[in-house]
């Protein structure tokens, strides 16, 4: 008799725990890890200027300039420009590194403007794929980082052997490792993504990325970038990396009755074929990341989204292939899809194509009440 009573009390207690606010650290961190999280937030919000290394090309002067709303680590309204060139004959994707790709920075320091008369990096000419890239939230990405490669590979079904019309496959980085971060799932680890972002987004070199981006493939003019390399110490970078790694995914809002119905409908019409409700992390030196369930609503695989959404290739990802966007925290966004073209969740669903066409058509066939319930579910995440 005592057992069920204890279970009931435990259930009531957990129901009374208020949902964590976005921007809070993972539960279960040690005091030392929480201290690093707080110190890392300072690094994440640190505003760089040319004298401290900003640029000479950049997209933002701090991490938090883009990942800003409603908290550091949340989504933002900036849309970047990325480029690559795809050769359909060979399947080779050229990220146009020698012409400034794949990220084309949208701002230049005054010194670079004076030296070259440009206020941003020029977009390479010729036959290229150009893409807009909106700013996603990065809450809970430490948990995604801790998902084993084997778990991602086990979800792949590149030849659609189960006949469900969905054929996810992993992307691989240029050294052959399995990718997972970025809209094309190119980058294998969160640390690499963060190190790359410092230099690509802010022009801030680190010990892990000690060389600046080129100016459209050309070297930086003498005297334009006065700060010595690396412009960020290894410890400052490690703190920023820990801040991102230890950010908790936002707790879903308590689901309304409609949202609960919508969750069932989301699965019934096939959305969970790609937006897999949960992944499991593997072993990790950080206990708070070890063997956890992350309700991310992604399979971290590439899927063909159809010609209407196609833009650029990256790694093995074809122009029409995108990694399934994690939906944890999607309620925080005000624009949707990889380039922010959708201004509502409903519009985003209706713009799905390719492998998602079947689920989209089922969504279109829902009653108004069912649609509203499904959208209420998404707004609870």
């Amino acid at each position, binding site marked *: 008799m005592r057992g069920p009573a204890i279970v009931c009390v435990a259930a009531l207690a957990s129901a009374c725990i208020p949902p964590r606010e976005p921007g809070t650290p993972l539960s279960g961190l040690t005091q030392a890890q929480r201290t690093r999280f707080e110190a890392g937030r300072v690094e994440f919000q640190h505003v760089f200027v040319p004298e401290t290394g900003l640029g000479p090309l950049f997209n933002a002067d701090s991490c938090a300039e883009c990942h800003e709303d409603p908290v550091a680590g949340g989504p933002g309204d900036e849309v970047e420009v990325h480029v690559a060139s795809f050769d359909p004959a*060979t*399947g*080779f*994707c*050229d*990220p146009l*590194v*020698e012409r400034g*790709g*794949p*990220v084309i920075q949208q701002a230049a320091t005054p010194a670079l403007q004076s030296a070259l008369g440009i206020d941003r990096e020029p977009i390479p000419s010729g036959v290229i794929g150009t893409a807009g890239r909106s700013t996603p939230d990065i809450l809970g990405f430490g948990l995604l980082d801790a998902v084993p490669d084997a778990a991602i590979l086990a979800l792949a079904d*590149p030849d659609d052997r189960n006949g469900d019309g969905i054929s996810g*496959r*992993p992307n*691989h980085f*240029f*050294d*052959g490792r399995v990718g997972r*971060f*970025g809209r094309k799932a*190119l*980058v294998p680890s969160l640390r*690499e*993504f*963060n*190190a*790359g*972002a410092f*230099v*690509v987004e802010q022009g801030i070199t680190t010990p*892990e*990325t000690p*060389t600046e*981006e080129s100016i459209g493939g050309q070297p930086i003019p003498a005297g334009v970038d006065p700060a010595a390399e690396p412009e960020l110490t290894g410890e400052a970078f490690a703190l920023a990396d820990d801040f991102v790694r230890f950010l908790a995914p936002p707790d879903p809002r308590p689901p309304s009755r409609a949202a609960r119905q919508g969750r069932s409908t989301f699965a019934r019409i096939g959305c969970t074929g790609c937006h897999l409700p949960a992944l499991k992390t593997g072993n990790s030196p950080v206990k708070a990341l070890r063997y956890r369930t992350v309700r991310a609503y992604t399979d971290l695989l590439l899927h063909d989204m159809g010609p209407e959404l196609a833009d650029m290739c990256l790694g*093995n990802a*074809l122009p029409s292939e995108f990694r399934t966007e994690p939906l944890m925290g999607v309620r925080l966004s005000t624009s949707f899809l990889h380039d922010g073209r959708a201004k509502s969740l409903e519009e985003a669903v209706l713009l799905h194509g390719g492998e998602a066409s079947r689920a989209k058509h089922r969504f279109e066939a829902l009653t108004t009440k069912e649609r509203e319930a499904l959208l209420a579910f998404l707004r609870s995440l």
Partner: protein
Amino acid sequence: MRKRAHAALRAAIGLAAILSLASAAEPEKITGTVKSVDTSESQVSLITGRGHALRVMVIHVKPGCRIEVDGVAGSMTSLRRGQVVEITYRNEPHPYTAESIATVPSAGPK
């Protein structure tokens, strides 16, 4: 005076041994995707990087460099754009002078 001379000699021998060990150190390794192959210049361009901060490295292919494609001995003409390769190299006589190049299995385009 003699003791000092001996100490200096020992130090010089030690330094020479360290320098000799350093130059004979194991070659370094790098893995990346072949962007281009220039047989006339004996160079391979390799895409590497961290995150989205990508870089292209120019690798010098010295005479006698061992090249393996899918486990089979080959030459520079066996290398193709898009292949993932592991390269062992030394920074002499040029930076990034390859001693061996071998393809790495990786999932390619559909």
